[in-house]
């Protein structure tokens, strides 16, 4: 390369370096103001069009929970008895619907047994937990635990969530009823009951969600939300209280573990005068809050998390989240004007 060519190319490169950020910035500023929500490593763009359907053909009422099955499909549970289950592909295209007998459809959990997908549905109006095949055939129905001595009538039992172990054992959280956690074997035989309504460490106000945390393979534990108390509680599989993780201001619904993080829909902000004040919350592998899409940035002072609250009116009453293999989030909402799920694309 001769000197002339060198100087020419150097000038062009310099012009490019100077021009690049200016135009890149200008383009984003003028042409694109996509809303980006969340904090730190977990930020998202928002797609309100994902999964919208013809409400006269496939209606929803409250969208309570949402999961991804082994085929990668997105499965939504609503309490609309025309179609309690709505199955989408990841693009939001409708694939299938079923279910007309779950008026209080609330909790939806996937269980995989010998390579086959099953669903656990809790119905607080039927006061039952129902296990079905992925296409809706009922294989097990569990009534309220009469032998436990904790319930006088079935009306006291309003189950909100289940979680299933690899051996088929499952736990039921009675978040709208007497607040007990019931532990069953795979046949539906009661093994243990713990918890109950109260403010003690091992008790709950609104034991709304439950999941088994197997991030530490040697020490699996149960994570149970005490939604009214803005607390996530850790229990052993035998029902012994271990510890609490406080999330001030956040009415967390159920914990959803994806990779090393825990994701939550937050129904609403505790201190808000505006009722539709929900947001999402994400904890890292140390159970520290790292991102709150739709809310204030999580800040710890002296190891205490400052109170969280909604900062933009995007979500109304988010009730559950599902995270796909690309880390995108699908958000189901309660009491949101019969809207379909919202998709968040990670950026």
């Amino acid at each position, binding site marked *: 390369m001769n000197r002339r060519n060198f100087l*020419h190319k150097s*000038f*062009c490169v310099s*012009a*490019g370096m100077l*021009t*690049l*950020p*200016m*135009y*890149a910035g200008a*383009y*984003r500023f003028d042409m*694109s*103001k*996509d*809303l980006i929500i969340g904090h730190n490593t977990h930020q998202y*763009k*928002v*797609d*309100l*069009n994902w999964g919208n359907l013809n409400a006269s053909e496939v209606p929803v009422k409250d969208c309570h929970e949402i999961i991804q099955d082994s085929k990668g499909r997105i499965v939504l549970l609503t309490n609309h008895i025309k179609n309690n289950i709505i199955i989408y592909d990841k693009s939001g295209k409708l694939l299938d619907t079923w279910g007309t007998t779950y008026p209080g459809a609330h909790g939806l959990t996937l269980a995989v047994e010998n390579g086959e997908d099953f669903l656990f549905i809790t119905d607080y109006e039927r006061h039952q937990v129902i296990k079905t095949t992925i296409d809706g055939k009922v294989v097990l129905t569990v009534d309220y635990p009469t032998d436990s001595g904790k319930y006088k009538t079935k009306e006291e039992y309003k189950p909100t969530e289940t979680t299933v172990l690899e051996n088929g054992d499952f736990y039921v959280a009675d978040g709208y009823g007497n607040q007990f956690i019931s532990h069953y074997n795979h046949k539906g035989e009661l093994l243990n009951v713990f918890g109950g309504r109260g403010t003690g460490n091992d008790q709950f106000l609104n034991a709304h969600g439950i999941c088994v945390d197997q991030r530490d393979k040697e020490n699996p534990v149960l994570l149970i939300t005490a939604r009214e108390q803005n607390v996530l509680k850790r229990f052993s599989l035998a029902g012994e209280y271990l510890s609490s993780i406080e999330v001030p201001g956040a009415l967390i619904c159920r914990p959803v573990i994806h990779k090393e993080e825990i994701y939550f829909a937050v129904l609403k902000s505790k*201190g*808000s*005068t*505006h*009722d*539709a*004040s929900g947001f999402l919350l994400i904890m890292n592998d140390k159970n520290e809050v790292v991102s709150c899409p739709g*809310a*204030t*940035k999580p800040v710890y002072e002296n190891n205490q998390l400052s109170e969280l*609250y*909604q*900062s*933009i*009116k*995007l979500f109304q009453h988010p009730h559950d989240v599902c995270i796909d293999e690309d880390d995108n989030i699908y958000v189901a909402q309660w009491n949101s004007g019969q809207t379909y799920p919202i998709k968040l*694309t990670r*950026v």
Partner: protein
Amino acid sequence: MRMLIIILGVVMLYSCNTDKKDSVEPKTFLQSKEIQLANPKIEVDHVIIDSSSLITASLGVDNANIFYTIDGGEPTQKSKKYKETIVVSEPGKYTFKAFHEDFKPSETETVTFYKKGMDVAHFSIISSLNEQYPGQGENTLVNHKKGSLNFRDGQWIGVTEPFIAEIDFKQKIVLESLDISFLINTNAWIFPIQNITIKISRDRDSFESLPVDFSNTPLTQDITRLDNVHIPVLKELRKMRVEIANTTSIPEWHQGKGNPAWLFMDEWIFNTKKN
């Protein structure tokens, strides 16, 4: 020069496509300008002023600004800008609103400060209290402490039937006005006062009715807020009997339609010239 123009063109094109994800994603993402800011979070140490009180306002969105008024008017970006904790020493209505160039402005958030009322010698609750929400008994409504939005904070009396109380001032006073505070939290089936009836007595035995100009705008959607009824009195009196009716039939749009609603009251402030 020609080469420079070509390179600049390439750079500009490249600049417009540096974010690969942008170029392949559908352009259906929600825009910031379509979204409204949430209401500013307002924190107050107390709203009944004996000497002074403090207000802080926050939102937690970068580059958002909060403006406020102290006359009940709607804040604009020409109103006072909130910069630091406000010291309040006089009764009044503080209204806050958040603005941001990328988002729709928030709705307003209002806090009303009251002058501390007179001490009441004898406050008797005639109707029966509900076992779930008795507050702190007869003292609850005249302890100079206002309840928060949390109806379980112990400062609220909650009833599902008419609430009747009799106040004996033990001497003749000139009562200028009465403020009755209540909570609205429709999700918890807590609705506004439906009706107020007041009788006053100058001699402790014979009562006469005091006209009360009270009306409510029917609620049409879920709401949570603190509210207050201001009742001018301007009478000399010794005793007072107040009957507050709860909403007897929850409106059609609510899941509790047709049922009686909860009525939650906290502080009653008796205003005289002296206090």
